[in-house]
């Protein structure tokens, strides 16, 4: 099921430049959109396409656009979320690095659809190279009359700016992003009001992920109906998956939604199987925030159906036996991976990235990290395991933004599916003090050495 929309022509030499991109069919959607379609036509096509947000939550893009307040008389803004900082997710970076014009093309169509004359790309601060690439690409587009005043003689004006973040995962949360774009501390805002009503500078704003916007050119060219034919059920289109961990071919793949997870892991076209011929232990299918699933539950649902790469299939079974497609950060763990260490590592990340505004997340993330650190280092107690479950459940649902949930879910899921590994850590402090990696079975075989 290889189907290229976003990464089409990615292999063409020099596709990063406007000239080559256009020679290969790039920017045709602009002509079509600006000259033959009204903004509402485009919104309608995007609705028909069934496209859902690729930033993690999977909210229908057309519906999000239709919420934008067009009556306020205030300027409207389109903002592209290129803050990609979730552990395990590196798909937007790949797209921006190699085919930046795909995003700019999508953004012109989208901004026109929203009636916006100013758009921003908010880029993760660490992506220095990408910021240069984007600025270069935007310069080319201005020169070619694809940006700026009176685009292609249509009477439509659009200015596009790149804004660099300063290295904060929380600025990927759309309202924190807006605060940061306004030059303030990146604290998420309380919702409602949602950005579609009161966003950037208090004006109606749409924030979309890079990959979401990169789809819009294709939808304008081929129509929403064609797009909806790709994929499966309510998961239409393709999805970029960044695959990493213990696999033979880590990298970014564009897959058609509905591809069986098993095929994605074992086919040579994708991950190419677990590295070194080892056994698969677990997978986090959608970036560090979503629940980890053990081998049996990631390959098949609890009902025994093959698990597919789609919003619905991956979340089947809820959080008890399912997970989420999330942002498409697919992390594979082999039999030797230590789930406790991995969970500790993630909790350290969320602790570090919490903005600190609300008490459950500020205090809870740091508490979970401390407890996990103790368990990982052989200083845990049995009751710590239930304590972690309890802390996670008290953060979840009680915070301003979903970072609190994102910090709680991985901990809850790891203990749900791999409790015995946590217990092993508590029961065998000498072993875990000296060995940082390796599965339960491996631990048992390792001769106990005294550390350096």
């Amino acid at each position, binding site marked *: 099921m290889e189907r290229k929309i976003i990464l089409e022509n990615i292999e063409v030499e020099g596709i990063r430049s406007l000239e080559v991109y256009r020679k290969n069919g790039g920017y045709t959607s602009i002509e079509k959109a600006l000259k033959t379609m009204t903004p509402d036509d485009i919104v309608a096509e995007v609705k028909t396409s069934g496209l859902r947000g690729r930033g993690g939550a999977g909210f229908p893009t057309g519906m999000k656009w239709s919420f934008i307040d067009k009556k306020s008389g205030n300027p409207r803004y389109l903002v592209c979320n290129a803050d990609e900082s979730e552990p395990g997710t590196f798909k937007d970076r790949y797209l921006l690095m190699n085919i930046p014009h795909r995003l700019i093309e999508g953004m012109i169509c989208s901004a026109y659809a929203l009636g916006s004359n100013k758009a921003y790309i908010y880029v993760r601060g660490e992506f220095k190279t990408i910021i240069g690439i984007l600025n270069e690409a935007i310069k080319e587009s201005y020169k070619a009359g694809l940006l700026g005043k009176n685009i292609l003689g249509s009477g439509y004006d659009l200015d596009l700016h790149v804004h660099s973040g300063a290295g904060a995962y929380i600025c990927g949360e759309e309202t924190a992003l807006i605060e940061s774009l306004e030059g303030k501390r990146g604290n998420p805002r309380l919702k409602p009001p949602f950005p579609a009503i009161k966003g950037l500078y208090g004006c109606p704003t749409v924030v979309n992920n890079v990959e979401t916007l990169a789809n819009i050119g294709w939808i304008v060219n081929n129509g929403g109906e064609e797009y909806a034919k790709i994929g499966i059920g309510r998961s239409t289109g393709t999805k970029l998956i960044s695959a990493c961990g213990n696999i033979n071919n880590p990298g970014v793949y564009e897959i058609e939604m509905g591809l069986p997870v098993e095929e994605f892991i074992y086919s040579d076209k994708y991950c190419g199987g677990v590295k070194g011929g080892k056994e698969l232990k677990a997978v986090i299918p959608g970036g560090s925030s979503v629940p980890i699933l053990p081998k049996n539950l990631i390959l098949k649902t609890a009902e025994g159906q093959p698990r597919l790469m789609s919003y619905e299939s991956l979340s089947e079974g809820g959080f008890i036996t399912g997970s989420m497609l999330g942002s498409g950060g697919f992390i594979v763990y082999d039999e030797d991976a230590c789930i406790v260490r991995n969970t500790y590592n993630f909790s350290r990340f969320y*602790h570090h990235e*919490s903005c*600190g*505004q609300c008490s459950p997340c*500020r205090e809870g993330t740091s*508490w979970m990290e*401390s407890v996990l650190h103790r368990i990982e280092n052989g200083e845990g107690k049995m009751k710590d395991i239930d304590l972690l479950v309890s802390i996670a459940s*008290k953060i979840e*649902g009680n915070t301003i933004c979903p970072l609190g949930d994102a910090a709680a879910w991985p901990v809850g899921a790891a203990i749900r599916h791999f409790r015995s590994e946590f217990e092993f850590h508590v029961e065998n402090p000498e072993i875990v003090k000296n060995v940082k990696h390796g599965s339960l079975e491996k631990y048992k075989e390792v001769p106990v050495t005294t550390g350096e």
Partner: protein
Amino acid sequence: MFKVTIDNKSIEVEPGTTILQAARMIGGDVVPPAMCYHSELKNSGGKCRTCMVKVAQGSAADPRPMPKLVASCRTEVMDGMVVENLTSPQVVDARKAVVEFLLLNHPLDCPVCDQAGECDLQNLSYENGSNETRFEEEKRTYEKIDIGDLIQFHPNRCILCYRCVYAADQLTDNRVHGILYRGEKSEISTFIHQAIENDFSGNMIDVCPVGALTDKTFRFKNRVWFLKPMDAHRSCTKCKGEATIWFRGDEVYRVTGRKDTYGEVHDFICNECRFEKKSSADWVIEGPRKIASYSVINQNHYKNVVIPSVINPIKETME
């Protein structure tokens, strides 16, 4: 007018009223505790999460419940909304959890804290806290900081409610006070330890719900429950000159803004009234200030106290 029902008690309120405001109009047990919201400070609220309630019915038009608990201080009522505060076990649980989180790194140094007796966190813990802690890690600690010669900042006690940030921002022109760092490492700070010098800086002490910002002219002078608060006024060119002055015998120990039942000051006072007018001759006394019934100043005793078997020496803490 919108009709809203909180814990089975109904009231009609103007559109735009928040659940918390509506609850305060009803009064009594239906009122959720609020640590970070302050009605005189724009944008305050939503952060501490103590005021969370359950919306069991969104409105008459759309009776679906809201999927998560909401911050009552920042959620507006809808017509026909049904809210649960103490009648919802989920709310009671979540509130206990928030109190636990707020106390996690709190030094629990009430015996040496000037705020004791009029501390929102103390009252909150008294109502919703647990007698034990599940926290075994080391607490985070900081040095005390003098913000100028009138105010002292004890970061250990700070619950990061942001009230002082909003007060400093909204009562004065220059922004000198904010939050450094993020997450659990966040700190209230002035720009490179600058003193805050303006006529209204003292109000940060009044808006602080805990003992993190204290009046240096009152530090360790007395315990608030030994003092008699009196409403008084004077003619002042900078503020309304309406304050509460705190007596022991004939001596004025301190001057504060007038706090209402919910600990909120509605007329901010200037530093001259607060720090310089400490003689009863400066003031026209109106009469005794009524203290909220839940406050320990009023109760003068604790119920249900668990007497610890060992009392740790607290001498070092008393510096």
